[in-house]
């Protein structure tokens, strides 16, 4: 059973990779399992300067999900390149760098910086972080801004650029088409949905930042719908994410049209989830009659509903 799949810049052993922000720079998980098992690793967001992020509490649990408002804490792109990437270079796993910023210039600068290293095989352009005051999500809610930042980043990037879409929009297809038109090599989707939990005792939002991004199984139906919709409107590949907990979930995303998937929140529930899903995937594909990962991609679009009914 072949789990291999090839995407722009990425030759993947299997379609499973940890999602940005849920796996740090891999060190902690490397103590629990061999990172070489992974299809790829998407590292935590990088900004030009280091950022401390938001005040705590930064996470809250919700029904089948969680809210986070980390606020893009990271040591800055230079320190990431100097201190984190050499460690990851020890592994035979493609690294995808998540690039964030509060201006087009910052996105461009960070992308340029990553061009200094050969460890990064692709850029994930994070125009969808709901947890910072300026920048980030604005670019992900307006097709024109998204187009512009994608175009500018493409000009300077030495590696393929995947644009990470926000689900907090009226028309996800329009966003996808805008970034495809700007030259994006692929899409990653979805980032988190903006949510809030109120602490009844404190009588205020539980998160210090008030709002946070909702992730986990709660949002899976929204992710699947958006990927299905976007798959019919653009032709660039999609790395799907949002609530994946099992190998069956992975297949659901492949059927919807994802070419590979990323796993975020599930790592917190079970730090071994990525290797466990990789191990389970062949038998799940087999159970549903698929001969390889590539065989399953997009196959949820073809079958007509057969029940009789008047309309």
């Amino acid at each position, binding site marked *: 059973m072949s789990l291999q799949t090839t995407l722009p810049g990425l030759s993947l052993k299997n379609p499973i990779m940890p999602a940005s922000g849920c796996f*740090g720079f891999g060190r902690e998980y490397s103590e629990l399992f061999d990172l070489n098992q992974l299809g790829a690793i998407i590292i935590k967001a990088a900004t030009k300067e280091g950022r401390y992020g938001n005040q*705590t*509490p930064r996470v*809250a*649990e919700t029904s089948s999900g969680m809210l986070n408002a980390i606020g893009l*804490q990271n040591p800055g792109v230079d320190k990431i390149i100097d201190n984190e990437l050499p460690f990851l270079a020890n592994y035979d796993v493609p690294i995808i760098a998540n690039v964030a910023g509060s201006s087009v210039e910052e996105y461009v600068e960070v992308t340029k910086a990553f061009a200094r290293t050969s460890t990064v095989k692709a850029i994930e352009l994070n125009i969808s972080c709901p947890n910072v005051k300026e920048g980030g999500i604005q670019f992900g809610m307006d097709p024109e801004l998204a187009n512009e930042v994608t175009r500018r980043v493409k000009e300077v990037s030495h590696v393929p650029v995947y644009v990470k879409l926000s689900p907090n929009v009226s028309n996800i297809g329009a966003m996808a088409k805008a970034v495809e038109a700007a030259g994006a090599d692929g899409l990653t989707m979805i980032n988190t949905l903006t949510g809030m939990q109120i602490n009844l005792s404190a009588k205020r939002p539980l998160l210090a930042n008030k709002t946070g991004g909702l992730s986990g199984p709660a949002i899976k139906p929204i992710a699947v719908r958006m990927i299905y919709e976007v798959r019919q409107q653009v032709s660039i590949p999609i790395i799907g994410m949002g609530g994946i907990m099992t190998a069956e979930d992975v297949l659901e995303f492949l059927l919807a049209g994802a070419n590979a998937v990323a796993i975020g929140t599930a790592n917190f529930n079970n730090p071994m989830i990525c290797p466990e899903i990789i191990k389970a995937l062949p038998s799940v594909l087999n159970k549903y009659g698929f001969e390889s990962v590539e065989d399953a991609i997009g196959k949820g679009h073809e079958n007509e509903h057969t029940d009789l009914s008047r309309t």
Partner: protein
Amino acid sequence: MMTIVKKEQIAKDTIEMQICGTSIVSSAEPGQFVHINVGDGNSNLLRRPISIADVNKGEQMITIIFKVIGSGTDQLSRCIVGEELDVLVPCGKGYPIKSLSITKALLIGGGIGVPPLYYLAKQLQEKGVEVTSILGFQTKENVFYQSEFEQFGPCHIVTDDGSYGFKGYVTDLLDKESVEFDYFFSCGPTGMLKAVSKRLENHKGYVSIEQRMGCGIGACYACVVPTCDESNGFKKICKDGPVFRVNEVVL
């Protein structure tokens, strides 16, 4: 996977549980915690951090003591003896007593901050350290482990409402009683830790702090706390803590 071997209610809403099953527990240090998955993939998606209250190396067993405050601890309290628990152990860094030169220790615990101090007291006693404890609870029915702490030396119980022991806060007791010590070790609500750090500002000590966690292993940056120095730095409570030198991080 670890197996629940004993479960007992020891005070109001407070459960003592013994779990066993992995040799790793023998390396556990006082102040470290376990990270427990009490969910089914839908409810209680995040793990719950609970301090290690005691370790029995021979039987590869640890004791935890927790208070039922929400859905996760409620779920945990419904687990029965014989059931398996999905536990990450041991997590974080504990009280660094191995490297300390110390003869008299003061332990100050508040509520569910008391449990980690028990294993700490036990280890201190093994090192020959004299241990005095001050344990604060809301009210009489919350009090637990008094006799256990008395094994190690003087143990003062304090309740907010005076329904048992001394009435007031742990710091009020410090004002009353003079206790001699080289180091203090504290664990409890942030308010108490702040008051204790202030009251004992000229003393060396360690505090154990809490924060809502995502991963519990240092990867997600959910649990950071700024350091007190001017470096603009931070620590991760789950990985660099939960125990910190007093005035190392901002409470």
